[in-house]
Structure formats: structure tokens, C-alpha cells
């Protein structure tokens, strides 16, 4: 706490004058950026539509109730597809993520160059959203579940590999050394020293990502990659609002159930 001497004795302040000014300046810069950013958006907005939005919301909201429950009979297949996209996508991701993670972890990587490549794979996979992956894969594999599954898989590789390699870097080295002291080979060290330590992490990551993937796979249909998003897109395009609300309800239930399952399983593992 800085002390400022004045005629009436010392005054105690929380910050030095310079620091206080720096903080104010920081706020000013933040405010300026915000104002500039807002202007950038506001320029491209048609304000008439925004003013009209509450009426629109009431209108669409009114058309959405009650949800068309009979539509459920047509939704079981897309829900099943969505689950498959998420689950098989997670499986693909885990299969690819394991070698990538071992290559990316500082203590198991065979060479620094390999590590750089692995880190690049992780970042590239994480930065491209699954919807964009799906957009590209639909061009290659045609519309359908396959494109969605691979999109989810490719997108999840980065996430799983990142968490897994952080887990590998945090293992207890004394255990690996103990195995090494028995004269174990490299592969044996891996199997008996490292893998048992990261297996719970691995299982936890898999379940955690599965839960996220359920949520992501609900939208892949928007670009034609299968699942319930396909129905959602169709219903929105045909303005069948009661079907839309039914689909949203189904998504809500699916996501809540998957979150609950994932929390339970993770709780049991860890």
C-alpha cells in the first residue's frame, strides 16, 4: 500500500497514482474497443427487424404451442442416428487421440518434431467446428450419418488428445521409474507404468466428450450430415412450428439424459 505524504500527514491509498491511472486507461481502451465493435455490428443491422422482434417472437412462440406429440413416432429414428453419430464419433476420436496424445506429451514423445506435428493436429482439429467439418465431409461422402460421424470424430480428436496428453504429462514418475528398474522394455514401461495411471483420465475424457458430442450432433443435420438436425431444418423450412417445438423438446430431454449419464459414469470412475 503506497503512502502519499501531504501537509496534513500521510494518506494511505490502495494503489500508486501511476497504477491507478494505468487501470483507468485500461478501462478506457476496453470501452473504446467495445464502442467500436458495437458500431461495426450496428452498421450492418436492419433496426426495423430488431424493433419488430418481440412481435415476431410472440407470433412464432404462439405457433409453437402445443408441441405436436404425435410427431414423436417419426423422431425415434433420427434420435437413434444422433446417438450413433455422437457415440461412434467419440470412438473414432479416442482411437485417433491416443497415439496423438502420446506423441504430444513431453514425457512420452519420441522426438520434438513429432511433438510439434501432434500439437498442430490437436489445434487444427479443435479450431474447426464440427459443423464446418460436416460441411466439408458432406461434399466428400454425400449427405448422411457417415459424414456426421466422421465430422464429430475429427472435431473431438483435438479435445480428447489435449486433455489426455495433459494427463500423461501429470503422471507420477516414480511409478514409471519403478517399472524401469525391473528391466522393462519401452513398451512394457508404457503398458505397466503409464497406461494404468492415465486409464481413469482416458475413460473420463471419453464420457465427457460423448456428452458434448450429443449436443453437437443435434445440429449437424443443418448441413445435411444426418441426425435430428435434419428434421429440425426440414421443419423450420416448412414453417411447421409445432414440429419444431417437439424436436426442441426431444433435444432438451436427450441432452439432459446424456448429461446425467455422463455425470454418473464420471462420478463412478473418478
Amino acid at each position, binding site marked *: 500500500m503506497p503512502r502519499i505524504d501531504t501537509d496534513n500527514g500521510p494518506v494511505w491509498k490502495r494503489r500508486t497514482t501511476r497504477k491507478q491511472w494505468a487501470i483507468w486507461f485500461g478501462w478506457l481502451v476496453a470501452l473504446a474497443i467495445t464502442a467500436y465493435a458495437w458500431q*461495426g455490428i450496428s452498421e*450492418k443491422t*436492419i433496426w426495423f*427487424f430488431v424493433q419488430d422482434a418481440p412481435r415476431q417472437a410472440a407470433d412464432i412462440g404462439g405457433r409453437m404451442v402445443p408441441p405436436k406429440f404425435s410427431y414423436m413416432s417419426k423422431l425415434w429414428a433420427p434420435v437413434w442416428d444422433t446417438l450413433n453419430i455422437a*457415440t461412434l464419433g467419440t470412438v473414432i476420436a479416442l482411437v485417433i487421440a491416443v497415439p496423438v496424445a502420446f506423441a504430444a506429451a513431453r514425457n512420452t514423445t519420441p522426438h520434438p518434431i513429432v511433438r510439434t506435428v501432434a500439437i498442430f493436429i490437436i489445434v487444427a482439429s479443435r*479450431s474447426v467446428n464440427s459443423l464446418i467439418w460436416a460441411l466439408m465431409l458432406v461434399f*466428400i461422402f454425400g449427405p448422411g450419418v*457417415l459424414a456426421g460421424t466422421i465430422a464429430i470424430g475429427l472435431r473431438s480428436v483435438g479435445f480428447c488428445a489435449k486433455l489426455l496428453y495433459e494427463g500423461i504429462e501429470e503422471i507420477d514418475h516414480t511409478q514409471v521409474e519403478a517399472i524401469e528398474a525391473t528391466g522393462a522394455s519401452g513398451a512394457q514401461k508404457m503398458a505397466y507404468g503409464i497406461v494404468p495411471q492415465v486409464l481413469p483420465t482416458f475413460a473420463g475424457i471419453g464420457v465427457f466428450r460423448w456428452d458434448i458430442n450429443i449436443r453437437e450432433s443435434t445440429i449437424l443435420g443443418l448441413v445435411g450430415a444426418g441426425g435430428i438436425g435434419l428434421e429440425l431444418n426440414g421443419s423450420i423450412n416448412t414453417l411447421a412450428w409445432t414440429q419444431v417445438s417437439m424436436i426442441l423438446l426431444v433435444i432438451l430431454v436427450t441432452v439432459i439424459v446424456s448429461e446425467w449419464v455422463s455425470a454418473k459414469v464420471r462420478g463412478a470412475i473418478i
Partner: protein
Amino acid sequence: MSVSSGPAAKAAKARQSFPTSWHKPPFIKNPLLRWSIIIGAAIYLALAFGTMDVDWGRAAEGLPRGQRFLAAFFPPNFSDNLGVMWDGIFESIWMAIISTIAGIALSIPIGLGAAKNLAPKWVYLVNRSIIGGSRTFPEVILAIFAVKLFGFGPFAGFVALSIGTIGFYAKLLAEDIENMSDSQAEAIKATGANWFQWINYAIQPQVMPRMIGLSVYRLDINFRESAVVGIVGGGGIGATLNTAFERYEFDTAAAILLIIIAIVMALEYTSGFLRKYVQ
């Protein structure tokens, strides 16, 4: 061995009574659970592959198409649509900044209300269901509705991302408040502070460092998401990317993807650095 007495016999006996080989214990100890998980997984995989309506012929046909598709990506074309690309990128950045700020501003009251140790039961339940609702639906679905309500453009994306931010930020804020140390809160209360003073001096300093880190992290997420809300009409770089795909200008699309990856990497690095700095 025919030796019946002496140390050699003892050693032989010891060898017999202790196991000489060792197996790793299985990951799941309960054999019933283990086998039911394995068999269940096998049945599920068989069912999933059985019902997955994959046109393998079409997929195989897709591989050479995929090669041509990937070839069309190279070399990435940064020059032809540079103006449009910059427009999209800046729009995305503006969207990410504004939606992070608006989302956090909305998250603070909701987060306070959703903390079990601050709010009465009914406030808690109301705020938790707001958080739950915004967490359930992916930003893209929120964006579809925002586009319906507010028209095409970045405003719709901004609304969708702000709502998405609430689900993330308010939840973590509430959890952080629930995990705070009570002794500090009590100490401030004992000075006779009113509610706002209590929040400002007892709770805010405890949660602030982590929350600053999370807001940078959320900015990072919002930029990433702004690349996809554009696909459904929410403006930003996603709209540019979608247009590039629809016009089969794959070299431009490749350039946009590379720019997105570069910005995300830069943001991730900065946010990691900033989070370390504040904590």
C-alpha cells in the same frame, strides 16, 4: 527335485506357495459389470452399424472426389476475396467481443441468483433453469431463432452468442461462489456491511481472478462459434466461409479456414497467458 531337507527345500516350498507370474488387475474390478459392459458395447456397436444407413458405394465414390476436393483447397487463395474476408473476420471479432461483454453483464445477476449460498430457493431454481436452457441448445440452434427474429446479419449472431455465454459463464460463476470461503464472507458481514457491500468486498475479490480468466476463455469460444453461426445466417466469418463453399471457391475457403485456425491459436495462446498472469 528330490531334496527333502535343507535351505533348497525351503526355497522350493516358497516358490510353490507364492505365485511366480503376475497379471495386471483389470480396470473394472467387478467381473459381472466388466463383462456386461463389454457385451453391451458389442451389442450396441452391432446395432449401430446395422442401422446406420450408410451408402458405402457413395462413400467409396467419394474418396477420389475427396482427393479432388482437397486438391482444390491448395494453394489457399488469400488474394482474390481479401476485402470480403477482412470484412467477415472483423465482423466475427466485433461479434465475439460484444457478445462476450453482453453475455457476462447478463451472467452476473443470473450467476449470483444461481448460487445456492446467496439466493433463496425460488430465485435459485429460476436462475438455474435459465442456465440449463441456454446450455442445452447449441449456439447454432439459438442462432437459427435469432435470425428468424432479428433478420440476417451479425446482430442475430450477437444475440445467439450472448445467450450461449450465459449458460457457460453464469454456471461457472455460480459454482465458484458456492465454493468460496465462508470465513471472509462472514468477516465482511460482521462489519455491518449491506448486501451490495457484502457482494463487492467479500465475494467479488474471491471470484474475480478466475472469472477474468474465464471471460478471456469465453471470448475465445465466442470467436470460434461466430465462425459457425454465420452458416445459418448469423453473420461473421462463417457467412463468408459458407458463401465460399456454396460458390465452390474452395481455395478461398481454405484461406478462410487457415485464418480461423491462426486467430484461434493466437487467442488460445493469449488467453492461456492472461489466465496464468491473473491467477
